[in-house]
């Protein structure tokens, strides 16, 4: 018996979404980059083993530092990571990437994303309830309701309250100019410098770069006072802004 090769397609294109770490490069010092990468990987060798990464050259290009992508790719490869794409790159870097067989993402950085995969779930284009200031900051002007999730690749500014049971996540800082009752997670990609600012902290959970506190651990004394939350020696510090 032979299998009839026409009974099923041998090749099929399917659309799928993956979550891939982005490695943001902010320096052209390859030795330093290698050192830092080695240190990071040592923390979780299994996690990073053969892990695919997308290299973001936005920072280094913004600083106008000359960077040879081919050399960088070699450094990254040595650490055991696989570069599967680059973004925010200049033309020379793109040409190098293509010659190395690495795809180039020329689309504008996916700046604004709201987690439930609706392109613009809470916006009517006419009113400015959903504004992007620059490529990465997300501004929300309507209350974030229980069960909603908002994700920002950069900073997140909320000009309304965040309801209990809602979740706001940002790779950068979070500003809430209303009562924060839900969960707020800043620096979700590991940015330990990220901070949370809010005018009334009644959150269920606050987290910066994976270090979190739940409401019971946040002292009630700070309610109704504008506070900031930042990371100091791996401990969350809640302090009045002024």
């Amino acid at each position, binding site marked *: 018996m032979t299998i009839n090769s026409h009974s099923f397609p041998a090749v099929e294109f399917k659309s799928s979404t993956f979550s891939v770490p982005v490695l943001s490069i902010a320096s052209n010092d390859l030795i330093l980059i290698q050192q830092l990468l080695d240190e990071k990987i040592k923390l979780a060798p299994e996690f990073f083993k053969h892990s695919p990464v997308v290299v973001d050259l936005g920072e280094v290009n913004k600083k106008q530092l000359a960077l040879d992508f081919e050399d960088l790719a070699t450094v990254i490869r040595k650490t055991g990571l696989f570069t599967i794409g680059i973004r925010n790159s200049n033309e020379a870097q793109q040409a190098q990437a293509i010659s190395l067989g690495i795809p180039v993402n020329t689309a504008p950085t996916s700046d604004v994303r709201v987690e439930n995969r*609706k392109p613009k*779930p*809470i916006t*009517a284009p006419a009113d400015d309830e959903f504004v992007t200031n620059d490529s990465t900051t997300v501004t929300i002007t309507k*209350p974030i309701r*229980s*069960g909603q999730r908002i994700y920002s690749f950069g900073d997140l500014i909320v000009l*309304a*309250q965040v309801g*209990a049971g809602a979740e706001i996540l940002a790779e950068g800082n979070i500003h809430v100019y209303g009562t924060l009752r839900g969960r707020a997670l800043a620096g979700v990609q590991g940015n330990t410098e990220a901070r949370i600012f809010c005018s009334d902290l009644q959150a269920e959970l606050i987290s910066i770069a994976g270090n979190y506190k739940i409401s019971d651990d946040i002292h009630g004394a700070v309610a109704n006072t504008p506070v900031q939350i930042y990371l100091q020696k791996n401990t969350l510090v809640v302090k009045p802004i002024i």
Partner: protein
Amino acid sequence: MARIIVVTSGKGGVGKTTTSAAISMGLAKKGHKTVVIDFDVGLRNLDLIMGCERRVVYDIINVINGEATLNQALIKDKNCNLLSILPASQTRNKDALTLEGVEKILEELSKDFKYIVCDSPAGIETGAHLAMYFADDAFVVTNPEVSSVRDSDRMLGLLSSKSRRAERGEEPIKEYLLLSRYSPERVKSGEMLSLDDVQDILSLHLLGVIPESKSVLTSSNAGTPVILDEKSDAGQAYADIVARYLGETRPHRFIDEKSGFFRKLFGGK
């Protein structure tokens, strides 16, 4: 074009069906041709509250399945001939409702009626989703207690993301708060959340406060919408709500004991 109103809450037992019955009757009494649809397939309560349960022959599922025409299924209210009721099926479950089926029914009703009131079932499953999906306005019925407020907040989130208006990027659904079963005495004694507490969390446009009232139960059991009991405080509260929705300015009542008493004395100024 008809205006589609969904009466929703998330939580059960807060007064969605009572509200649907009252406001649809109120709109009809004001001279607007109105239809009220029971989306609670499997439980079917609206026809009881409207007092037409013995006249139910066909229901919304029959219409969706093409077993009956819309006109066959619609029941004319006995108190007001501008009001019709489209009952739910008791023998099916909520999965019998389809998005296409509901859309077709609403489209057809839009030609004939000025207001379409959709009585949503509790929860956030298919029935509730379909009841709110096509809505223009949402009446969020909330009781002054924490779990009801939390569920309403969740429902508001869904209204702003999972409705047709949201998916098409049109002007969002207009959301209104109806605070029901409110008892100023119990708020005062700290047993109940106050209007301010609720608004602190929901920050919505308040359409009205409906006081906890014996007349709601009496009317429900008698099969007449409470709004027809003009002497009762709940009936008056619903009349105010309908008037406010239609654009009249009426002062809020029943929020605290004193002002209710005060207004009674001076007949609202």
